[in-house]
């Protein structure tokens, strides 16, 4: 959490009442959304309601033993994050306190109260390289230099928004801490690496573009059927056990973004530990460096204070916006937005606000859309282009998609990956239901796939969708009469659909090779199934019985393409297609 720059001590207020995370105070001189320190322990809180002399505060820490009469101290500034080098390879709680530093400071594995720490290391020095020269004019947002933040990412140092701007009068390379001045302007303004920004306010941009480039994910069902654009928004709703977190983690690992901001919002502690353990060892498929070098983690687990859960998505997206301003493509995962919504509900009910649907506050839809609107493909103020792709997991109670959080999210996002517990029970992973899911980016991304992967990408995909649709209808009949009662060409469709499901849609997130599938391989696997379909249809027309066609021994090898290493795929598929052709043609 950022240190308040304004150190003038305001007049203290006095606690009037305490009820869970909600505290009221009298005589406090504070604005809406100001950060305040509550009680003798100095627990951090935020002003959420002002009524006459009575100020209501949500407290980001446990309030046990806090009593009326204790002081409340205002800081005069709203909840802000520290922006600067050092955010990558970090793990924060919901108000940007670095958890590793907290562990040190508290000397215990358990989170104590009233301990604060700056979001970025104030002591560490960074090697600064200017990118403008003395005499050049710069404006707010412009890049003046960069520091190597991690092996993967150069952190751009920018003129903070709100600066007047002017000519650079002094700028030099060298090692600086984040608080030291790296450039001075003729207006007298000084530029440091560290900026502060209030989390609930979007950082300024020039313009928003229509995204045309996919955020390739290495997941066949996503890239192949339901692609997400760089700058797009997606929701992954699903009941528990359907693989939301695995899907989110796969995206965090393999999406071709420059930066990943991963928000664990009200989820399990061990899941965050898994990310902390795994990411430093896993290579980033784009650069080969450790994944952590492009990742910022925010962990506010379910047992951590509920108010900090409410703020953690804002903390995350503000950090994402800062990297976007540098011209990077950022992918932001929020797991889970339902917990965020529940945190809003909990605070709202403590405030005794009039509830909307299912007890959620009436402003739920507005908050959700404000959040997702901060994603997009942007022209930045400084002339660069950057994007934020936002992917929110949704945890609908009982897996019922008609509940308010899912419904309000669906009204905003353009990609919908519906997880299905029936598929999960069959261990069909990722358990994304191909009938219910959709992506509205498909058409605007097709030109990219046609140009970069294969010319017939859209046609091939449509073929797969048609087969899956037909399979869906046939399965209903099969449920009634059994498979053998169907005509042979329909039996073939069922068989081909089975391969699409098993060899193409399913992907093993735990297999070293299969967990990441480049779009070219996605294309080849489906191509192999399609060529089997074509050859088999010819054979069927020539009078070969279906059992003989599906019985050829080359066919089961379709299932092994996924686990074939990327550089051997072409050879493997060529050979397989040739074998299928040969074996089938030998039957007639």
């Amino acid at each position, binding site marked *: 959490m950022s240190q308040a720059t304004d150190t003038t001590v305001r007049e203290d207020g006095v*606690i009037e*009442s*305490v*009820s*869970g995370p909600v505290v009221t105070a009298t005589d406090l001189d504070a604005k809406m959304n100001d950060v305040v320190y509550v009680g003798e322990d100095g627990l951090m809180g935020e002003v959420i309601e002002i009524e006459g002399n009575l100020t209501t505060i949500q407290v980001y820490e*446990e*309030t*046990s*033993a*806090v*009593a*009326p009469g204790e002081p409340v101290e205002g800081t005069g500034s709203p909840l802000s994050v520290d922006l600067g080098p050092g955010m990558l390879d970090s793990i924060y709680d919901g108000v940007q306190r670095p*958890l*590793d530093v*907290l*562990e040190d400071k*508290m000397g*215990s*594995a*358990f*989170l*104590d109260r009233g301990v604060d720490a700056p979001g970025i290391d104030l002591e560490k020095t960074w090697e600064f390289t200017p990118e403008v020269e003395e005499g050049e004019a710069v404006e707010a947002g412009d890049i003046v230099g960069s520091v190597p933040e991690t092996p993967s990412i150069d952190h751009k140092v920018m003129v903070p928004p709100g600066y007047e701007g002017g000519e650079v009068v002094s700028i030099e390379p060298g090692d600086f801490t984040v608080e030291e001045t790296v450039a001075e302007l003729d207006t007298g303004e000084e530029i440091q690496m560290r900026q502060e920004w209030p989390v609930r306010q979007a950082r300024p941009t020039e313009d928003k573009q229509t995204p045309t480039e996919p955020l390739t994910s290495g997941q066949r069902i996503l890239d192949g059927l339901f692609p997400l654009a760089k700058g797009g928004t997606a929701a992954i709703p699903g009941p*528990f056990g359907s693989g939301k977190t695995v899907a989110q983690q796969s995206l965090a690992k393999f999406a071709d973004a420059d930066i990943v901001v991963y928000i*664990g919002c009200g989820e*399990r*502690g*061990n899941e965050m*530990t*898994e990310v*902390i353990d795994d990411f430093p060892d896993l290579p980033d498929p784009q650069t080969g460096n450790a994944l952590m070098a492009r990742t910022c983690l925010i*962990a506010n*687990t*379910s*047992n951590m204070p*509920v108010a900090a859960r409410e703020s953690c998505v804002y903390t995350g997206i503000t950090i994402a916006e800062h990297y976007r301003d540098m011209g990077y493509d950022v992918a932001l995962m929020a797991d889970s937005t339902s*917990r965020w919504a*529940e945190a809003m*509900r*909990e605070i709202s*009910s403590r405030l005794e606000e009039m*509830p909307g649907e*299912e*007890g959620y506050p009436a402003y739920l839809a507005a908050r959700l859309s404000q959040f997702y609107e901060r994603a997009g493909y942007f022209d930045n103020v400084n002339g660069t282009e950057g994007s934020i792709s936002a992917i929110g997991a949704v*945890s609908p*109670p*009982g897996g019922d998609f008609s509940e308010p959080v899912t419904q309000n999210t669906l009204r905003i996002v353009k990609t919908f990956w519906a997880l299905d*517990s029936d598929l*999960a*029970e*069959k*261990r069909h992973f990722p358990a994304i239901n191909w009938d219910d899911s959709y992506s509205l980016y498909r058409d605007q991304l097709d030109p990219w796939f046609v140009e970069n992967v294969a010319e017939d990408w859209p046609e091939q995909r449509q073929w797969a969708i048609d087969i899956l649709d037909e399979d869906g209808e046939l399965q209903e009949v*099969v*449920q*009634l009469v059994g*498979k*053998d009662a169907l005509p042979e060409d329909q039996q073939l469709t069922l068989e081909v659909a089975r391969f699409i499901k*098993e060899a193409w849609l399913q992907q093993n997130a*735990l297999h070293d090779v299969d967990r990441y599938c480049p779009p070219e391989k996605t294309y080849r696997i489906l191509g192999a199934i399609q060529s089997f379909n074509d050859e088999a249809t010819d054979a069927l027309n020539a009078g070969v019985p279906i059992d003989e066609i599906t019985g050829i021994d080359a066919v*089961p090898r379709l*299932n092994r393409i996924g686990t074939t290493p990327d550089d051997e795929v072409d050879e493997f598929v060529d050979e397989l297609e040739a074998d299928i052709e040969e074996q089938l043609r030998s039957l007639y």
Partner: protein
Amino acid sequence: MKEYQTITEISGPLVHVETDEPIGYDEIVEIETGDGQTRRGQVLDTASGHVAIQVFEGTEGIDTDSSVRFLGETMKMPVTEDLLGRVLDGSGNPIDSGPDIVPDERRDIVGAAINPYSREYPEDFIQTGVSAIDGMNTLVRGQKLPIFSGSGLPHNDLALQIARQASVPEEEGEGGDDEDTEFAVIFGAMGITAEEANEFMDDFERTGALERSVVFMNLADDPAVERTVTPRLALTTAEYLAFDKGYHVLVILTDMTNYCEALRQIGAAREEVPGRRGYPGYMYTDLAQLYERAGRVKGQEGSITQIPILTMPSDDITHPIPDLTGYITEGQILVDRGLNSQGIQPPIDPLPSLSRLMDDGIGEGLTRGDHGGVSDQLYAAYAEGEDLRDLVNIVGREALSERDNNYLDFAEEFEEQFVQQGYDTSRDIDETLDIGWDLLSMLPKPELNRIDEENIEEHYREDVEAEVAAD
């Protein structure tokens, strides 16, 4: 410490008091009734001049003349290693007529959250000796894996079986004494019947498990509000034993449904805006504060593994209690009514069951290299067989292809041989996986698409297919 005789309102489990000094949130309160009885309670809401108190032992007998004492501290649990072998009531007072407990320390029962950065990822395989768990929903040390059950199902037998049999197989060559692999068991009972409680106690005594157990008993006729405290006492004790004394602790909490009912009761008494089905909106957070107290911590020897038990009202997994639980815990074990009436013991339905931490706890060097593949294949095959059962009811077996018939046989045998084992049988992991291979060998080799080829070569049994065909 001041005493007040200023009670202004008593409603349900809540007492409102006027005060002239500031009272801390969550503070503990003693209320003395006219006839000299003492009740304990906790501050739920505090404002200057007025506090609301939730009374654990019920408000019967309290009148506006009763005197209220604020103890100036939040609720604490006296902890010591000597608690092992003791039986306590739901508020932590000994009820086994043993000696007084001399605490080493008194710990805040709310408990602080474990810093996610300080956690150690759980990956030590726990062998429960139950095939459906070890083979397909493996439990690891530091996991929270609830049993989802229904009224009238033998979840207690299953929990006892796990408590009895759970051990961590020592790695060969590590040497040392095997005693270390045994678990200390913390048993937190909330609102269970005296009969159920006896069942547990008898089993603990019979097997000698009581010596390494701490039992907290809130029975069905004990005050409901006390149930909100019992699991916190149990978990505070567990944390002390695990992270201060290095024990591997297994915490069994039963029945979480009663706990949630108590939450709802308090919420209603406070006239809160209710969430789904009348349960409070903060139930997710509240449950998380219990379940998340499982885990391991870097640099500490011990661990806390939780097995909460809950009965799903009318077997409905989408009911808020199992639903919220499932979102917090790392999987669930489902006890199934259908399997139970077939006489399968334990009647675990593997399909909706899940262990999220399984993948990291199994495999080469941990259990066996083929474990993951066998588990996936058993799942897929059983799911397929299950699906076909509906069809058979309509068209009959003769109308099905040979492949389908094969899967139907498989599903049958899977239930009879793999899931069925009885409550007194403990199978080690090799035995479990070998039974798995016996079953998988009923299917033709090319159907085994989830298992690596080497493993198929090593374990697939050519003779079984013939055997079954000959039957």
